């Protein structure tokens, strides 16, 4: 109710103990198109739904390589994402040069968190309006991390962020046990299924709007986009979807961010009905 007095600067607390600017920044992540990350013992996979600002333009790239053993996918303000991506690449490169070994994924994520935190506490700055899903492989195995504009970061078994991502998270939660011993191919298919669940009924995954990134025990971080995605889409083609997210309006984009999305991310239909997958 009194939000307007306390939401102009990131250095201002509200009487409820919240910093509204940070919450608004996290809203920007929820507006970005969905992306899903999951891992097995040997591979970490991220898949992303690419949005096109108009029919004339290309679909916005969502998955970015960081180093041979790390890649990220973004949701939110693309420009902020590019900045963090550049930072991560520089840190990885410097570490490899100094120590002749890959930077442990968790340490890189902590560095991103520390950098993001400054923007949540310094007057005149604003939080980064982007959430990342980081897929990496190091001596301790496979990793999926999530970072937020709040500068929190989370070590995840699997995660989905962006518009209508709750449906994807539900799919991931339901199938979590299957991931650990999956093959790379099966893992990618699970990711695509989770991603498909974030789509409205009339929209489907195509080679244009979907990209895949993976890294693992014997593979450096690789991105599959366009035609490379076709083989995996074909494998899940016939399957029934576990749930559609319902029809949503796509409002106008005005910030050049990752693409607009619905104001409210509508979750799955209310529980109580029979679940088709189980």
């Amino acid at each position, binding site marked *: 109710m009194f939000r307007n007095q306390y939401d102009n600067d990131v250095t201002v607390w509200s009487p409820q103990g919240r910093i509204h600017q940070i919450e608004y920044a996290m809203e920007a992540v929820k507006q970005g198109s969905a992306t899903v990350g999951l891992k097995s013992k040997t591979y970490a996979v991220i898949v992303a739904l690419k949005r096109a600002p108009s029919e004339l333009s290309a679909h916005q790239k969502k998955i970015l390589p960081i180093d041979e053993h790390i890649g990220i996918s973004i949701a939110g303000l693309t420009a902020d994402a590019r900045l963090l991506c550049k930072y991560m690449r520089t840190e990885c490169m410097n570490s490899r040069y*100094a*120590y*002749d*070994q890959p930077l442990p994924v*968790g*340490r890189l994520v902590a560095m991103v968190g520390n950098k993001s935190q400054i923007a949540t506490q310094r007057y005149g700055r604003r939080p980064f309006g982007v959430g990342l899903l980081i897929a990496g492989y190091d*001596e*301790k195995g496979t990793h999926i991390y999530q970072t937020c504009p709040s500068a929190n970061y989370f070590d995840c078994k699997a995660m989905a962020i962006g518009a209508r991502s709750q449906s994807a998270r539900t799919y991931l939660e339901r199938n979590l046990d299957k991931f650990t011993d999956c093959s790379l191919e099966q893992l990618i298919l699970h990711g695509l299924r989770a991603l498909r669940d974030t789509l409205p009924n009339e929209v489907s995954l195509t080679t244009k709007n979907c990209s895949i990134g993976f890294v693992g025990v014997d593979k450096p971080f690789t991105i599959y986009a366009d035609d490379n995605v076709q083989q995996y889409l074909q494998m899940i083609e016939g399957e029934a979807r576990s749930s559609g997210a319902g029809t949503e309006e796509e409002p106008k984009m005005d910030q050049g961010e990752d693409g607009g999305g619905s104001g409210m991310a509508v979750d799955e239909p209310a529980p109580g009905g029979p679940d088709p997958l189980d």
Partner: protein
Amino acid sequence: MKMSLIHGPLSNVCGVKSNDQSEALSTAGQCSPWNHTMYPSVTGTSVLGIKFDGGVMIAADTVGSYGSLAKYRALSRVMRVNDTTVMGTGGDYADFQFIKSLVEQKVIDDECIADGFSLNPKALHSWLTRVMYNRRSKMNPLWNTYVIAGMQSGEPFLGYIDKLGVAYEDKSVASGYGGYIAQPLLREALDAAQRAGTGLSEAAARKVIEQCFTVLFYRDARSWNRFELAVVTKEGATVSTVNARSDWNIANIIQGYE
């Protein structure tokens, strides 16, 4: 003997090598107020390293020489970095103390992060090479030779770095006079073990190291007969002190004996 400061950003532009800071300041604008390392002061002599079956060991005697004076006779030139890594040094002792404090801080940082990753020998070797080369390139070297040893992913690691930033790995390394006197003995031991088809055992490695220090004490005029031995195996890293045996009974029949 004047002690010169070892930190300095830029080259000595005017070409006048002044060792006195006030002299430099009085001609400020022409000379940098910082001095560049021209010579070491308290120095350590050889450091030896050898790989054996299941581990690696390095050793260095415990004397710090002030020129020809054996000034500090209980110096430790070997540092236990962590469970998997040890580091030994020859050359300027103050420069070693500087690097030692940087490495100790790295170990503390690893302990604070506590993510299961800790400094391993290859990483330390790579990082230190970069530091040494960088200082050399600024014409202000850290006047040291380092031997880094440890277990790298279950395999023994042994590396060498000198003040020029020259760095390499080998089955046996030696710095200073050790490179001339001890290295042939170390290599002979390794070759014999290879020809026999067995690896070099820890006991045999220790024996050849002790033999090397005996010979070094006879021949290197800046050496000492007590040395520290650091052994790293998959069980961990330990540092112990050993007395080198020498027999000077024949000394009086050598030409020049007074």
